[in-house]
């Protein structure tokens, strides 16, 4: 309470004299909280409320004697409480308008009496007793600036003797302290709402926005400029006579999509002003818009393009906002935060202070410049000394300084930041732009090391280092070229850098580094060794750059593929790793996949699966993973004996990245039956089932995918069951990873085709889980789950009963017929086909309106959907007047058209549906009108008996109707 009163409350006169509390919202809320605390005190802490204050709280009251009622002796102008302290003094004494109170009991009583004057009373009390704690507990508990040891004293006392009074004191002290914190906290909230801009914050924001502003589509703004370059010593740019209005500076902003905006940044916020008058010199200061809290908020309102492009640079955006937020919050709350630093004891309690502003600070720490000379690490001085020679020395001195700088631990962030903060980075990059090869080499040796750091990478790119390094790739000196390529490899880890390399012709030059003729030879001459080294560096840089799609294309155009293919044949892991890394990165594009297949690279990828280097193995497996979507590639992998090393690599389950790549490769390879046979031979399925538990999701996706492919064969399904694979698979149905769910549902569905397996799935409640996945918003999962449900219903015992037991399940399925996704529709039709086999369920789904929904789908050209839709219609005909209903909702005519499809399975399903529908005379008429007989007749001669029968049955029905009509007509 003391701290809050001393610091947060707004007193009219500074210092601890007899100031009065101003009537401000902040004070009012503080007082109200104190009132609440005191009022509740006697109820919540009866024992402490009886505690007698060391000194009475004394103040001039406006209360009248008459207000006191029961429990008080009233004599003329004095009121005494009946309750007395041990020494016989009354706990409350009112003489002439001076009130003395000696316990919380009495205090809360006074407040009750005071009614609407509560606020005034508390205010008077606090004004008279600037530190009430001293009065209540004694002077040793006074609020002291700095260290607060009172609690420690108390603790000691409590420990020493079990004096009950001390314990009570302790309790009161803690309670008051809690109140204190609470008050501070709420005042902090109040203050923080009152955010005001300052020049530094504006300047920071402008600088940040400038970083993202230039001509071009992707930037957030075209430009943003101060109207004046002159900065006053207080950081403002506004002329002094405007500064008195709180204005800081004026900006002209050119957004992409609106006219230039002239804005005023003032301490109250950002707003649009009247614009520039007479060229540049005069500004119409009049406010023309609402006031926004900062420039970004302002622009968000004004420029849709700004918002859009901000969203594009998501990472940038979050950085920007964090920065803005941080700067604003930090600068405004700096003094408030002092409270928390000073009141050490606050840490003892469950501190309610929001630590968000502190964590912000931590996150942004690396971004901030070290300023001033206080407690900088010793590396700063060492590096600063060397920097002098870099800046002001001839090449000889520079080289000595560079070599010496290399002796610092450049992998350490302190050194990296020191180099940047001292401004060495600029010098190092300038050195690259000289003709001095030795300086260039020395500089690159340092840049190569420090570019391991993200911030340095960005700084190098910002300073235009990439452009120069790309130019260096043309140098005659091999060492220099190698270093430049390696540094590019480090820097080009982010999009913008990758783009810069491409735009300055870097890709072509890097590909050029790969071109030499040392490939394939086992023993290298020194000259060839250098070639290999150069190719290695080139490949490293290409690897980094290949993360961008356009760069992949650029590498291909520069003729990189045959060169990569050539290096793939060599046997040095240090060059193979970046080469395969690049290839696997590029394999995400079809042209590379084709090239990998046709240039015979699969053989070498397979060969390197057996390398000793896990990283290389991983990239090879990953390349195969990406390429094996293609059937020929899968066959090539098998023909080159790649399946065996893949299955061997499964044993290394510690390296998760490797495992993910290997299982991925196995998944894609298992799409071919021949490969599955091989995998069975290598007992891959058993191993995969064993890996189903405790793996990261990316691995699980691939494992389950692979099992799903293997499941197409009955032998493998029973293997999975035998190895206990079903329980973990069903368990995975409860996950959230989308890709994983698609694969799991597919695999579980495939397994459910075995009745024995189905028993296990049913026991584990797997069908219910599958059914729940129909609610998933992702259409892939919906479809996959619905497909999986089909065999489940088919093979489960008492399937009808089981389906009915899912509350709302049938309605859910029927409603999925409203989906837009063809695959979902087909799968749901499949599920409905199976559900409708049970008459009771059919009745239920009919009630949910399955007939009109199915009929609505009838006009489709998708053969898969046509087939399953026809099957569903055929099965749904079995209930009530559904046949008639289908006819009424115009499902018949489109069905007839299905017979013109090229897919025989569509013919069969359609013929069956038509046969069912033809039981209704009206449908027969519709069919006949649509020329069904002509289409059905050839199908009667089909080799497919089901089709034959259905077609014949349908014709028979139509014929019978015709006969009956004739009979009715003529006789």
């Amino acid at each position: 309470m003391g701290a809050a009163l001393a610091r947060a409350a707004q007193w009219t006169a500074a210092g601890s004299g007899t100031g009065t509390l101003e009537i401000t919202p902040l004070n009012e809320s503080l007082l109200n909280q104190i009132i609440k605390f005191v009022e509740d005190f006697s109820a919540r802490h009866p024992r402490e409320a009886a505690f007698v204050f060391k000194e009475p709280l004394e103040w001039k009251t406006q209360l009248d004697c008459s207000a006191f009622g029961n429990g008080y002796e009233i004599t003329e102008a004095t009121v005494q409480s009946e309750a007395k302290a041990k020494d016989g003094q009354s706990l409350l004494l009112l003489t002439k308008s001076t009130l003395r109170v000696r316990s919380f009991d009495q205090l809360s009583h006074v407040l009750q009496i005071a009614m609407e004057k509560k606020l005034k009373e508390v205010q008077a009390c606090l004004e008279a007793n600037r530190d009430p704690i001293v009065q209540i507990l004694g002077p040793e508990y006074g609020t002291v600036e700095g260290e607060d040891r009172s609690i420690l004293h108390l603790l000691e006392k409590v420990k020493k003797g079990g004096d009950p009074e001390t314990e009570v004191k302790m309790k009161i002290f803690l309670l008051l302290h809690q109140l204190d914190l609470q008050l501070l906290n709420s005042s902090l909230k109040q203050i923080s709402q009152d955010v005001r801009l300052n020049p530094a914050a504006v300047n920071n924001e402008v600088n940040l926005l400038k970083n993202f502003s230039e001509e071009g589509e992707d930037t957030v703004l075209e430009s943003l400029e101060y109207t004046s370059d002159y900065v006053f010593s207080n950081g403002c740019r506004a002329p002094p006579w405007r500064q008195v209005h709180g204005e800081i500076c004026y900006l002209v902003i050119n957004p992409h999509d609106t006219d230039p905006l002239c804005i005023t940044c003032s301490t109250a916020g950002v707003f649009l002003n009247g614009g520039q008058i007479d060229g540049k010199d005069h500004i119409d200061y009049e406010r023309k818009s609402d006031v926004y809290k900062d420039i970004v908020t302002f622009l968000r309102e004004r420029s849709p393009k700004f918002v859009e492009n901000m969203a594009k640079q998501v990472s940038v955006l979050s950085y920007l906002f964090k920065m803005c937020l941080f700067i604003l919050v930090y600068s405004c709350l700096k003094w408030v935060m002092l409270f928390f630093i000073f009141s050490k004891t606050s840490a003892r309690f469950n501190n309610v202070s929001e630590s968000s502003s502190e964590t912000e600070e931590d996150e942004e720490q690396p971004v901030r410049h070290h300023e001033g000379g206080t407690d900088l690490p010793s590396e700063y001085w060492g590096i600063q000394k060397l920097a002098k020679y870099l800046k002001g020395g001839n090449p000889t001195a520079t080289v000595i300084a560079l070599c010496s700088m290399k002796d610092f631990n450049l992998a350490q962030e302190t050194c990296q930041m020191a180099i940047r903060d001292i401004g060495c980075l600029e010098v190092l990059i300038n050195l690259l732009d000289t003709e001095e090869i030795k300086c260039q080499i020395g500089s690159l040796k340092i840049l190569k090391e420090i570019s391991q750091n993200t911030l340095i990478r960005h700084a190098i790119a910002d300073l235009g280092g990439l452009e120069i390094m790309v130019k260096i790739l043309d140098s005659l000196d091999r060492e220099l070229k190698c270093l430049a390529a390696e540094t590019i490899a480090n820097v080009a880890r982010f999009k913008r850098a990758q783009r810069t390399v491409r735009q300055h012709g870097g890709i072509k030059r890097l590909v050029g580094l790969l071109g030499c003729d040392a490939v394939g030879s086992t023993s290298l001459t020194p000259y060839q060794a250098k070639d290999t080294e150069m190719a290695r560096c080139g490949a490293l840089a290409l690897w980094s750059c290949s993360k961008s799609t356009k760069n992949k294309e650029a590498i291909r155009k520069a003729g990189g593929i045959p060169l990569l293919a050539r290096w793939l044949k060599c046997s040095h892991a240090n060059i193979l790793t970046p080469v395969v890394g690049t290839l696997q990165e590029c394999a995400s594009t079809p042209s590379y996949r084709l090239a990998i297949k046709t240039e015979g690279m699969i053989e070498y990828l397979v060969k390197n699966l057996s390398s000793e280097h896990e990283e290389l193995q991983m990239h090879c497996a990953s390349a195969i993973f990406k390429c094996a979507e293609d059937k020929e590639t899968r066959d090539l992998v098998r023909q080159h004996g790649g399946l065996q090393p893949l299955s061997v690599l499964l044993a290394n389950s510690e390296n998760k990245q490797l495992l993910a790549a290997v299982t991925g490769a196995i998944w894609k390879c298992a799409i071919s039956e021949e490969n599955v046979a091989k995998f069975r031979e290598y007992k891959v399925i058993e191993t995969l089932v064993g890996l189903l538990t405790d793996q990261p999701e990316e691995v699980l996706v691939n494992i389950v995918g692979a099992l799903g492919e293997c499941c197409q064969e009955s032998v493998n399904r029973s293997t999975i069951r035998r190895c206990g694979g079903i329980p973990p698979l069903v368990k995975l149905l409860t996950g959230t990873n989308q890709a994983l769910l698609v694969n799991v549902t597919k695999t579980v569905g495939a397994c459910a085709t075995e009745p024995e397996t189905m028993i296990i799935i049913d026991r584990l409640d797997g069908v219910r889980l599958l059914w729940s996945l129909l609610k998933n918003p992702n259409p892939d999962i919906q479809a996959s789950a619905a497909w999986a449900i089909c065999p489940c219903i088919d093979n489960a015992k008492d399937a009808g009963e089981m389906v009915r037991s899912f509350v709302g399940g049938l309605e859910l399925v029927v409603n999925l017929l409203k989906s837009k996704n063809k695959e979902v529709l087909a799968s749901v039709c499949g599920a409905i086909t199976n559900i409708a086999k049970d008459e009771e369920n059919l009745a239920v789904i009919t009630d949910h309106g399955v007939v009109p929904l199915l009929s609505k789908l009838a006009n489709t050209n998708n053969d898969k959907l046509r087939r399953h839709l026809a099957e569903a219609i055929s099965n749904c005909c079995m209930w009530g007047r559904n046949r008639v209903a289908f006819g009424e909702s115009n499902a018949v005519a489109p069905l007839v058209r299905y017979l013109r499809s090229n897919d025989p399975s569509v013919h069969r399903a359609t013929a069956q549906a038509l046969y069912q529908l033809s039981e209704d005379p009206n449908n027969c008429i519709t069919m006949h009108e649509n020329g069904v007989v002509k289409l059905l007749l050839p199908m009667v001669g089909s080799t497919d008996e089901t089709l034959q029968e259905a077609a014949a049955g349908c014709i028979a029905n139509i014929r019978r109707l015709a006969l009956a009509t004739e009979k009715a007509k003529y006789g």
Partner: protein
Amino acid sequence: MFTCDPPVAPSDATRPLLPGPGPPARVTMTAAAAAVSGRPLTMSRKRLQQLVDALGHSTKHFNKGEVECLIKLFDKLVAESSSRFAAAGFDRNMFRDILHSAFGMTDEMIMDRVFRTFDRDNNSCISVVEWVEGLSVFLRGTMEEKIKYCFEVYDLNGDGYISREEMFQMLKNCLLKQPSEEDPDEGIKDLVDIAMKKMDYDHDGKLSFKDFEKAVRDETLLLEAFGPCLPDIKSRMAFEQKTFRESS
């Protein structure tokens, strides 16, 4: 390329212009000296052949054709520059001009030292043999040869060590003069300290050949730590191309 006036210092005039047969420093010296002792300017076909053969054996890095080219170049340069003196080789100034114009060297002291290093027999005149053998290291030396060569260049007094004072001498022009600094030598002294800290492995306050070799093996950039005394790649290639293509 080599068109510069021959500035001849008066001291050179007092020196013996023709090297005597001198103490044969190496095997080839005698053969070569014999060849040179005639009239160098109009060397006969036969003598030239002899010389080429002899040098072809001793220098690893040039083939015979290249040796011949270098000899021709030597003759040409001598003929051009020493019209007034019947020189048997380059004197200090001529050599310095060559280093400057062909290889872009500027540091007087270093060039002087390079001259000394080429001039194996210490007679202040670079003979054709010294020229070819010197260039062999200068243009195409192995790392070992270059380390040895550079150390010799930097070891100003030839005592087998590069001392602090020698470093100071070589580095004294390294820094831009900053008027604000009280003692302009302070920066140089610091730089010497930095170099010493970096390279003096045995902490005896001076660089032995072993120190220097280890430092260079560790960081190749330190090969020319105290000033450029080898040609850079561009001028080297330009020189080779011009000499070997034109003259052959």
